[in-house]
């Protein structure tokens, strides 16, 4: 065991000392998480609203209401707003004309035009706009009522502020009727990208790192190791453990960094780490297989990166599995990525427990055993060949 730990330790040391790994291990995954979060989750669940109309108290009041509800608000002229809605760049368009502005200023009822988009998040955004505008109407009615009772406008506004502060505003959870939206219910802006990039990079780095195994074999380090009082099985166990430690280390780093930087919610952290640990065994085993069948370090890096990207693409590491056609989604589950994706989805979105993720863990464990046995057999064979 001590020999296996020594081998694993030296593999980790070599990984950490290789400056070439810094970018792909520590920086690049976070960049992609940020980019994906910005692209797919920029609106969160609160939506984007574009308002056209003159700068006025009404526009300011609506904007404040929406922003309080974490809706992203931008302004544009009427034509630009229509184009944004049509192109899906905003969920809802809101038209504030001069009549509405004047009515609001006079304390009369206001009527705004809402233009709904076709995006899956449009429905939620519409509801938020309706609530915001409704709140404004209600507030205006309340102010008018107080003024009618002889209270000055300033005192009326102050009284209403105080009353609002004492009451807990009821929260409205909007449940979308759209199935795709329901799939992503409960996810933060960067959550989806973080879990998919964790799977992609953990596996890819592990596969690309198989070159160090070839290097050790070709340079005679493995031979020298086996000339020590170390059995072949111990040497292979050390190599596997080293690769697992590297994969787990990188995955753990991505979890920690995305939580700290982007506030990614990993759900039950113990379960998420368990999924990562089992997935990392599969990655380590796959690296052993690759490092045993290839004899050229450059080829191993190339094949590792290529294979890592292809498997991630198939298995939901680049695009959410939920938007895959049914057949492709079935095919995706030949990859460990898809099972890891499902397990993280269960934990992050549905607060899944161990029982919920057991099927995914079971498949990942079976895959891990398979690739480890294959890797061990192939490495023994390649060692015998190289000695």
């Amino acid at each position, binding site marked *: 065991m001590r020999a296996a730990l020594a081998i694993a330790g*030296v593999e980790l040391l070599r990984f950490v000392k290789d400056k070439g790994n810094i970018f792909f291990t520590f920086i690049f995954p976070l960049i992609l998480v940020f980019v994906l979060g910005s692209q797919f989750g920029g609106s969160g669940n609160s939506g984007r609203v574009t308002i056209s109309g003159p700068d006025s108290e009404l526009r300011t009041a609506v904007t404040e209401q929406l922003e309080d509800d974490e809706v992203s608000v931008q302004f544009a002229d009427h034509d630009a707003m229509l184009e944004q809605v049509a192109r899906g760049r905003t969920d809802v368009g809101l038209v504030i004309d001069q009549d509405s502005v004047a009515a609001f200023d006079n304390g009369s009822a206001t009527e705004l035009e809402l233009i709904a988009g076709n995006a899956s998040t449009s429905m939620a955004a519409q509801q938020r706009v309706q609530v915001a505008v409704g709140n404004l109407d209600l507030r205006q009615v309340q102010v008018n009522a107080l003024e009618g009772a002889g209270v000055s406008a300033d005192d009326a506004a102050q009284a209403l502020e105080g009353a609002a502060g004492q009451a807990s505003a009821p929260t409205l959870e909007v449940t979308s009727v759209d199935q795709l939206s329901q799939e992503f219910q409960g996810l933060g802006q960067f959550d989806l990208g973080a879990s998919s990039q964790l799977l992609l990079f953990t596996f890819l780095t592990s596969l690309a790192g198989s070159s160090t195994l070839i290097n050790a074999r070709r*340079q005679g380090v493995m031979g020298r*190791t086996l*000339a020590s*009082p170390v*059995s072949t099985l111990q040497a292979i166990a050390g190599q596997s453990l080293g690769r697992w430690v590297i994969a787990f280390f990188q995955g753990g780093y991505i979890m920690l960094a995305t939580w700290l930087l982007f506030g990614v919610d990993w759900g039950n952290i113990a379960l998420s780490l368990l999924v990562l640990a089992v997935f990392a065994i599969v990655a380590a085993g796959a690296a052993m297989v690759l490092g045993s069948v290839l004899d050229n370090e450059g080829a191993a890096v190339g094949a590792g990166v290529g294979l890592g990207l292809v498997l991630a693409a198939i298995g939901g590491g680049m695009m959410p599995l939920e938007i895959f056609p049914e057949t492709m989604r079935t095919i995706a589950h030949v990859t460990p990525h898809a099972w890891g994706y499902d397990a993280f989805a269960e934990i992050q979105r549905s607060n899944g427990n161990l029982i919920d993720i057991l099927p995914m863990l079971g498949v990942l464990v079976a895959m891990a055993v398979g690739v480890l046995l294959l890797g061990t057999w192939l490495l023994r064979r390649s060692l015998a060949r190289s*000695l």
Partner: protein
Amino acid sequence: MTQTATEPTTTGDGQRVLVVDNLVRRFGDLTAVDDVSFTVAAGETYGLLGPNGAGKTTTISMIAGLLEPDQGSVTLLGQQMGPKKAAPKRHLGLVPQDLAIYPDLSARENLNFFGKLQGLAGGELKSRVGEVLELTGLTDRAKGPTKDFSGGMKRRLNIGIGLLHKPTMLILDEPTVGVDPQSRNAILESVEALSDEGMAVIYTTHYMEEAERLCDRIGIIDSGTLQAEGTRDELIRLTGGVDNIQLTGSGDTAAAAEALLALDSVAQADAERGHLQLTVHDAPTAVAQIVTTATASGLQLSDVQISRPNLESVFLHLTGKALRD
């Protein structure tokens, strides 16, 4: 508690540290090692001399327990060696022909790693790493990555790793390949010192002069077969123990050859144009009389060359081919 190789539990077969018995190893149709046997005693340096592809490294791999022999056995300090035998490997230090070090790690990190594989730990590991760095002259460069080392420094580290756990038997597989003359001399001196300290050493080389300088006994190997073994002098006697003298000059070489053949020390004299090729016993003693006789027979000498047989001659004699790369 780490059992070190300097405390052998037994010396096995008397003074013999290593017994190699009828080793055979085949790769498909090729018999890489064919019935090789020899022994090595404590404090003895045994040379395996042969050209590239002769079977030296395959033999070494079986001795080091890396390869399972198809037939025969290897016994180190009375314990059977093999890929699945961990215990006797504690007594063995292997310095492979390849630079079996991690280039991205420092000398100290490499030594620490291989020391741990040998079962060293804690203060003992730290102390041995320091000693080996001192011994190899790498203390000042202990922290830098070995990829920045010169070829000689890498070779020294490669040897140092083999010495970390103070093995009873050290195997050096062509340790001077690609090394500059200064580093080569340093390596040869350290091997001599290790032998003087009582370490049993197997030294494989295809450099005749290294084998002659270092080895107490030499096995000449070719095509997987041990052609002959013994001390340098014993091997040279296999060639007949005769020296060669070449006389160059003008005059009647045929008459001179006839006169020289009459001497007891001259076994053969062949006259060629301007040269006389003599096969003689004990050339250093006989050369004065030969020169006098040749001059007296009318040969005006311009050059005299004496060549004594060496391991190259032995190899040529045994295999019919030159010992070369």
